[in-house]
C-alpha cells in the first residue's frame, strides 16, 4: 500500500469522525422531536437537522426530509452577509424563514442556526428547521399574504432571549403556545449539536475534525463523479404536466439532462411563475435535483455539499421552478415532487434498471383551521398524506408512503381525534390505484374526515388530472381526488369551509408500474386480487389468468 500524503487524514479516522457527525445530526433530530409539543413535529417528524462548516456548505444532514436541504443551503451565507462574524458570541442564535432571504423554501419552515465556538472561534454551525403547522387559512397570491417574513436575525444574543423578537413572531401565529414550545425544542436540538461538536473537537482536535469535514466533501464528490461517469454520455429529455387544485389546470413542465463524463447538467423548463403558492425557489429546485440524482446515481453517497459539485442546475428565472420575489411558495412541495419525477424520468433512459416509475407525485395536504369549541382557542392541523411509490425493476412499489422530497409520518387516527375536533371515517388503501406491471406500482390512500366543529380547510396536491406514469411498459397508477361531502359549499382554489358534521374525502394518487403486466408472476396477481389491491380487469390485462 502506498503511503498517504502527509496532509491527508487516514481513512479510518475520517470514517470515525464522519460517523460521529452523522450521529450528532441524528441525535439533534431526536431531541427536537422529543422536546416538541405540536403533532407536526412530535408525531409527524416534519423537521430536519444539519451541521455546516464556516463557508456554509453542508458537513452532514440527518436523513429526515430531503426538501429541508433547501432550507439549509442559503442560511449560513445569508447570516454571514447580514452579520459581522467578529460581533458573534457563543450563545447567539439566528432565526429566519424567508424564501427570498436565504432561510427556507416556504415560510412555515423556521430555521434556527447557532455558531459552534471552540477556543474562541467559530468552527461550524448547528442548524435545524421545523415545519411550524400554523399560518393556515391565508392567501397565496404573493409571499406577503402567506406569513410573517423573517430574515436571519438574532433570537438569542449571547444566550439571552431577545424577547421583543419572539413577541413579534408569536403575535403573527395562530397557535402561539405551540410555536413557543416548538421553538424551544429547536433550541434544544442546536444546543445538543453545539455540545457534541465541541466534544468531538476536544477529542480529536479541531483541525483534524475540520480537515475530515473537507475530506468527506471531497469523497462525496469523487463518488458522485464516479457514479455519473458510469452512466452513458448523452442528452436525455423528459416532459410531463403539473396540475394543482389551486390552479385547476395542468401546466407543461420538462427537463433536459446532459451527461458528459463525470458531470451532469439539468435544465428545467416551466411556465412563468403564478399568483398561487405552487412556485419553487432555486434552492428548492436544487434540493429536488440533489435528491433525485443521488437516488439514481448512488444512494450511498454521503449527504454533504460535495455531491453537488459535479451537478449544474438551471431554469429560466421567474418561472415556476425558479421563482423570484414576490412569488408565493407555500405549496412548493408538490411542484418539487414533479421536478424529482422529471429528473428520474429522464435518467431512466440512461439507467432504466436503477429508476422507479412515477410515484404519487404530490404531497397531498389537508390544512385545517378553526376555533376549538372546547376552549375557544384557534387550532391548526396540517396533514400530509402518503400515496403510492413507483414500482421498481424487481420489486413492487410501496403502498401509502411519502415519496421523494417529503418523508413525514402519519398522525395516528386516535391521536388526531384526541387533539382536534375531527373524526376520521375511513383510512384505507385505494383499490386499484397501483399501476399494473411486472412490478406493481404502490397504492394511494383514501382518508375521509368529518368536521365536528366548523373549520376552514385547504386542500393541496397534484396528479388529479394526470396519472403517475409507468416505466418500461408498466401501466400508469391511479389519480388522486378531493371529494366534498353532499352539503359542503364548493371550494374556491382548493380552499373552503366545512360546517359541523360535513365530510371531505381525500384520495391520494397511486404509482406507475414497471415492465409489461403480462410478465407479472401469476402468483403475485392472484395475491393482489385476493387482497383487493387490483380489480379483475387489471388481472385480465395480464396474460396469466388467475386460477379459480
Amino acid at each position, binding site marked *: 500500500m502506498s503511503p498517504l500524503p502527509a496532509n491527508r487524514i487516514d481513512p479510518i479516522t475520517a470514517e470515525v469522525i464522519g460517523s460521529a457527525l452523522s450521529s450528532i445530526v441524528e441525535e439533534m433530530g431526536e*431531541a427536537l*422531536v*422529543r*422536546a*416538541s*409539543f405540536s403533532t407536526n413535529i*412530535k*408525531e409527524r417528524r416534519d423537521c430536519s437537522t444539519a451541521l455546516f462548516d464556516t463557508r456554509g456548505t453542508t458537513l452532514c444532514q440527518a436523513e429526515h426530509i430531503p426538501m429541508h436541504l433547501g432550507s439549509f443551503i442559503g442560511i449560513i451565507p445569508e447570516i454571514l452577509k447580514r452579520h459581522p462574524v467578529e460581533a458573534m458570541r457563543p450563545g447567539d442564535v439566528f432565526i429566519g424563514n424567508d424564501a427570498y432571504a436565504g432561510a427556507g423554501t416556504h415560510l412555515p419552515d423556521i430555521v434556527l442556526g447557532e455558531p459552534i465556538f471552540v477556543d474562541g472561534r467559530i468552527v461550524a454551525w448547528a442548524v435545524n428547521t421545523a415545519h411550524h403547522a400554523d399560518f393556515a387559512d391565508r392567501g397565496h397570491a404573493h409571499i406577503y399574504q402567506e406569513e410573517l417574513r423573517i430574515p436571519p436575525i438574532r433570537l438569542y444574543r449571547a444566550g439571552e432571549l431577545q424577547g421583543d423578537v419572539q413577541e413579534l413572531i408569536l403575535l403573527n401565529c395562530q397557535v402561539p403556545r*405551540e410555536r413557543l*414550545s416548538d421553538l*424551544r*425544542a429547536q*433550541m*434544544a436540538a442546536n*444546543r445538543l449539536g453545539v455540545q457534541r461538536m465541541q466534544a468531538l473537537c476536544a477529542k480529536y482536535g479541531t483541525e483534524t475534525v475540520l480537515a475530515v469535514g473537507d475530506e468527506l466533501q471531497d469523497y462525496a464528490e469523487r463518488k458522485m463523479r464516479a457514479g455519473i461517469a458510469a452512466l452513458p454520455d448523452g442528452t436525455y429529455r423528459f416532459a410531463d404536466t403539473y396540475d394543482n387544485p389551486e390552479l385547476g389546470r395542468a401546466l407543461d413542465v420538462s427537463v433536459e439532462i446532459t451527461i458528459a463524463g463525470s458531470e451532469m447538467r439539468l435544465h428545467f423548463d416551466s411556465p412563468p411563475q403564478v399568483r398561487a403558492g405552487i412556485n419553487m425557489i432555486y434552492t428548492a429546485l436544487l434540493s429536488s435535483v440533489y435528491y433525485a440524482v443521488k437516488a439514481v446515481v448512488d444512494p450511498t453517497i454521503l449527504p454533504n455539499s460535495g455531491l453537488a459539485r459535479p451537478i449544474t442546475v438551471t431554469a429560466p428565472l421567474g418561472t415556476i421552478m425558479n421563482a423570484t420575489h414576490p412569488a408565493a411558495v407555500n405549496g412548493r412541495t408538490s411542484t418539487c415532487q414533479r421536478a424529482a419525477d422529471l429528473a428520474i424520468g429522464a435518467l431512466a433512459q440512461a439507467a432504466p434498471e436503477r429508476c422507479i416509475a412515477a410515484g404519487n407525485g404530490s404531497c397531498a395536504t389537508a390544512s385545517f383551521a378553526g376555533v376549538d369549541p372546547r376552549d375557544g382557542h384557534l387550532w391548526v392541523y396540517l396533514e400530509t398524506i402518503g400515496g403510492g411509490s413507483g414500482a421498481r425493476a424487481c420489486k413492487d412499489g410501496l403502498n401509502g408512503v411519502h415519496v421523494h422530497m417529503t418523508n413525514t409520518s402519519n398522525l395516528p387516527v386516535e391521536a388526531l381525534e384526541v387533539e382536534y375536533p375531527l373524526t376520521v371515517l375511513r383510512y384505507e388503501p385505494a383499490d386499484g390505484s397501483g399501476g399494473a406491471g411486472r412490478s406493481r406500482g404502490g397504492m394511494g390512500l383514501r382518508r375521509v374526515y368529518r368536521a365536528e366543529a366548523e373549520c376552514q380547510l385547504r386542500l393541496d396536491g397534484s396528479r388529479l388530472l394526470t396519472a403517475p406514469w409507468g416505466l418500461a411498459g408498466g401501466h400508469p397508477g391511479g389519480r388522486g381526488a378531493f371529494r366534498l361531502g353532499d352539503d359542503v359549499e364548493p371550494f374556491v382554489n382548493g380552499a373552503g369551509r366545512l360546517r359541523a358534521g360535513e365530510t371531505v374525502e381525500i384520495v391520494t394518487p397511486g404509482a406507475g408500474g414497471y415492465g409489461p403486466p403480462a410478465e407479472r408472476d401469476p402468483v403475485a396477481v392472484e395475491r393482489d386480487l385476493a387482497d383487493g389491491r387490483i380489480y379483475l380487469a387489471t388481472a385480465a390485462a395480464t396474460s396469466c389468468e388467475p386460477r379459480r
Partner: protein
Amino acid sequence: MWFADAGIAANAQRIGLSVDMRYAGQNYELSVPLPLGPATPTMIDELGVSFAAAHQRLYGFVAEDEPMQLVTFRAEATGMVRKADLRQSADAGPDARAAAFGRRDVWLRETGTFVSCPLYDRARLRAGNRINGPAIVEQMDATTLIVPGATATVDPYLNLLLELP
C-alpha cells in the same frame, strides 16, 4: 414474589421506583426517581422540581407555565448476585473435524463462483480449534462465514477469532 421465585436473599434485594413525566402536549417522557411512601403535596412538588431539572439538563429549557403529566409509574426489582465466573477451556488442539457436519455449495464474492464449503457446528468447537476459510460455522442464532484466506481460531473462552489475510 419475584425475589422469592428467583431465590434472592433478603439482604440482596433492591427496589427502585420511578415515574415517567412530561409536559402536557409532549409525546416523550423523562424518567424521574420516585421516593418511597404515600403521595403527598410535598412529594408531588418535589417530583416537579426533579422533572424540571432533568428537562433542563437534557433540553436546556424549562417550560414554567406548562402543566406536567405523570404518565407511567415503574417499579424495578434488582437482585444483587455474584459476578459470573468465566472459566477457561482446556486447549483441545487445532483439529476441528469433530465439529464438522457436512458441506454446502456457497457463492463467494471472493472467487465469483460456487465453492463447496465445509460446515461446522459452533456448539461442538473446542478451544484451540482452527478452521481455514472458506468454511461456514453454524449456531442456533447466527451463521459465521469464514472467507477464503481467513483463519478462525477458537479462544479459551470459546470466542471465534477471525484473522483476515
